[in-house]
């Protein structure tokens, strides 16, 4: 009997543990994902409850009105160029853009956070209920400018953020649309203007991923910086050959880099070297570094819904691993995530959580939310970040990214030209940042089906950096 009682006592802890687990998990998922569930387009209850509430205004960081309610109608910024430039970030109440501010922050905009007393006071005064005003971290001026620099007719995305705080200044997808004039043509456009490519479009990051491969090499090879690699232009892996950009085997034209170091390979974006590095690192090591930077993580950012990037875990043949080192294969990431990776390099290895909400203010002037920077994760060691920063600087001074250079400013970056099977041209990528204490901005640019990152995306980056240095430092 004594033993029995003792066993029963041990079971008490187990059984109570079940309830603790339920409560803890419930609290955890409600606090981390509750906002997403609420904002889901499947939430018919919240949509029905919007009736009878005047939706709050949406402002940019400088107070420019991006959306307001006039006579029960939702109206957007007066300037069409601004409307288009922030269309995806702001979204529309109908939810045609998924997870725009209009739907994702509905709990503020439609006053779902009002306390019982506030509701009562509205009812007593006979006033209609008004949702909270939401001020975003977006800068409508830089957004407008960035949109004007993007090649007309092309699809793609631009993300600009402050790498020290995580505040997102521009979050754009192309083609964009005018929320005040949604035509059938826009709705049926095969380029899907409502898709927010900055956060929802998962594509191969191409050579911009070499930042990750280089970080893995720096953190795992003691002699990473001095080791010599041989680029013959054709690296046989399994039954396939890995080549460098500019190679046309049919025409007998082969790009060769000869003997080179990691730094040089990064500058000229040598696929051959990075494929060798990936094979030397082995898949689990490279994967660990990628996962440190957010690959395969479930992004649960408070203000933004970003599709999860994936570092493939299945069918890992040598050929796949080699191509992963160069940013191809089944690897996928969003422009937003690549911008975060550049930001982490700029910010001594610390990746800040991207933020979109600066402040939420109730109708009665009460502040309901104020932004404060949050760290998302430590993506790499500070020394690694310092070395990578140098590498990325050299890409712009004397590598593939020279067209991003701005006179008198420390521009750092990495180009990418990602091959997509269904497209004629490569996707042009540029991710980079200003290494300037008073202008801590990082960006990611993708122009789909447009050509090389160095020639197509880098010049756009240069213009945006230039604008930021002139207007925002």
């Amino acid at each position: 009997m004594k033993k029995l009682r003792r066993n029963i006592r041990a079971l008490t802890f187990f059984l109570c543990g079940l309830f603790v687990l339920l409560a803890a998990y419930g609290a955890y998922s409600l606090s981390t994902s509750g906002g997403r569930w609420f904002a889901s387009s499947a939430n018919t209850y919240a949509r029905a409850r919007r009736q009878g509430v005047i939706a709050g205004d949406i402002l940019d960081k400088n107070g420019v009105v991006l959306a307001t309610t006039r006579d029960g109608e939702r109206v957007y910024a007066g300037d069409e160029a601004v409307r288009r430039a922030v269309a995806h970030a702001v979204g529309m109440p109908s939810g045609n853009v998924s997870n725009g501010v209009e739907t994702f922050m509905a709990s503020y905009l439609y006053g779902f956070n009002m306390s019982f007393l506030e509701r009562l006071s509205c009812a007593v005064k006979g006033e209609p209920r008004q949702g909270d005003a939401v001020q975003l971290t977006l800068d409508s001026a830089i957004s407008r400018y960035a949109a004007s620099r993007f090649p007309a007719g092309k699809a793609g995305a631009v993300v600009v953020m402050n790498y020290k705080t995580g505040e997102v200044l521009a979050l754009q997808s192309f083609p964009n649309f005018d929320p005040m004039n949604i035509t059938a043509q826009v709705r049926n456009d095969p380029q899907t203007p409502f898709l927010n490519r900055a956060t929802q479009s998962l594509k191969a990051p191409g050579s911009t991923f070499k930042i990750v491969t280089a970080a893995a090499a720096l953190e795992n090879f003691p002699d990473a910086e001095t080791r010599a690699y041989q680029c013959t232009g054709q690296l046989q892996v399994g039954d396939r050959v890995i080549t460098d950009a500019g190679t046309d085997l049919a025409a007998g034209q082969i790009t060769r880099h000869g003997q080179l170091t990691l730094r040089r390979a990064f500058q000229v974006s040598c696929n051959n070297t990075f494929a060798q590095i990936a094979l030397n690192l082995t898949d689990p090591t490279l994967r660990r570094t990628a996962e440190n930077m957010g690959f395969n993580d479930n992004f649960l950012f408070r203000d933004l819904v970003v599709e999860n990037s994936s570092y493939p875990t299945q069918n890992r043949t040598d050929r796949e691993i080699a191509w992963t080192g160069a940013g191809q294969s089944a690897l996928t990431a969003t422009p937003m995530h690549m911008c975060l990776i550049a930001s982490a390099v700029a910010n001594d290895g610390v990746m800040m959580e991207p933020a979109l909400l600066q402040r939420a203010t109730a109708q009665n002037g009460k502040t309901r939310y104020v932004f404060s920077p949050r760290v998302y994760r430590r993506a790499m060691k500070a020394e690694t970040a310092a070395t990578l920063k140098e590498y990325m600087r050299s890409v712009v001074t004397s590598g593939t990214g020279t067209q991003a250079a701005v006179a008198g400013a420390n521009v750092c970056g990495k180009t990418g030209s990602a091959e997509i099977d269904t497209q004629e041209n490569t996707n042009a990528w540029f991710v980079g940042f200003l290494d300037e204490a008073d202008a801590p901005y990082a960006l990611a640019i993708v122009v789909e089906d447009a050509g090389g990152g160095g020639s197509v995306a880098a010049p756009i980056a240069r213009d945006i950096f230039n604008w930021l240095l002139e207007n925002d430092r």
Partner: protein
Amino acid sequence: MKNRKKRRPGSAAALISAVMLFFFLAFLLLAIKEMSLQCFMMALVVPGIIFVGSAGIPKLFPADRLLLSLTNFLCALGVLVLYRLSPERGLAQAVNYGVGVVCMILCTLLVRYLSDWKLPAALMLLGSVLLLALPLLMRAEERNGARNWVYIGSYSFQPSEIVKLALLLCIAYLLSNRKVIVSIAFAGVCLLCLMLQKDLGTALLYYAVTLVMLYAATGSHLLIGAGLAGGAGAAVMGYQMFAHVKKRVAIWLNPWADVEGDGYQLVQGLIAMVNGGAWGVGLGLGNASVIPYYYNDFIFAVVVHEFGWIFGLIVLAMYAFIVIRGVMIARRARTAFHALLAVGCAALIALQTFVIIGGNIKLIPLTGVTLPFISYGGTSLVSSLCIIGLLQGVASRNEADVSEDRELAMQGGDLK
């Protein structure tokens, strides 16, 4: 001898009155809102059942009042929430509740007065296997991928809910007589029947309860380790064999992959809970009926939706209290049989609550077991109340033994 504190019946009476008043007012509110005479009747009947269930029973024999009040609160909550969303179901549930209270009393009396369980245990052993095999023999239609109902005319019931009680009693009896192998074999046969019926949620419960009781009886880590390994093996096999298990797991991993299709139920459940916020949308103001099977699988989500997550936590705490109370009863029991029976009852309630609420909040894959006391369903409510009845039986025996001791002590008798 421990000098146990004398319980103050005053505080228990206040608690019971508060519970009765709560449900009287809640139904009155609904009655006024709906202008329904039937609902007004419910405002009188439900507190009536609560009174019989929690204040009446202790007059018959010594009973654990706290356990009774909590149980009755949860049952009445089920009736209330169901009535509000679908009056027919609420009405049916009120009847089930009444029947359940009577069955609960019967179970208590059984445990209180029956001393020799040899023949009953043997009969139950046979009966359970037959009952569990019944749905398979009757070729009943599948319901939600499972074939676990028996239909007799227009009347239907779930044998697995009734066998639950037999399982607790038989395993407790067998283990108290050190018949470990026989008890494992019996549980194994039950599990096999349930697996064949594809009623995997209940199978999981039977398995876990058996394991808990085995641990209580033997304390053998080796045995439990082997049991866990076997369970894991069966889980993997089940996953490979049953398409609907694979689907459930996929939904659990990412319900948002198909918000309008497979993931709809779970997604709507999660959304309903978050819509409730801290204080709930208010009784009668929600739209939780958009969740498929809101009345049994997702009743917890409905409660959180209408009353808020703070109330949801309170409900959770009530279950935890019932379980803790059950374990305390087990520890005070004088015979191994009664101790094992009580710990089995407590474990069953804890595990069943965990499995279904865990499924609701996406902690584990959803399985179709009911939430004890609250979910809609006659067999389930009655069997949950019977489990409380068994617990009460053990509790009343403990009390009787204690007072016997006291008398002996007063007569100057020698205690152990």
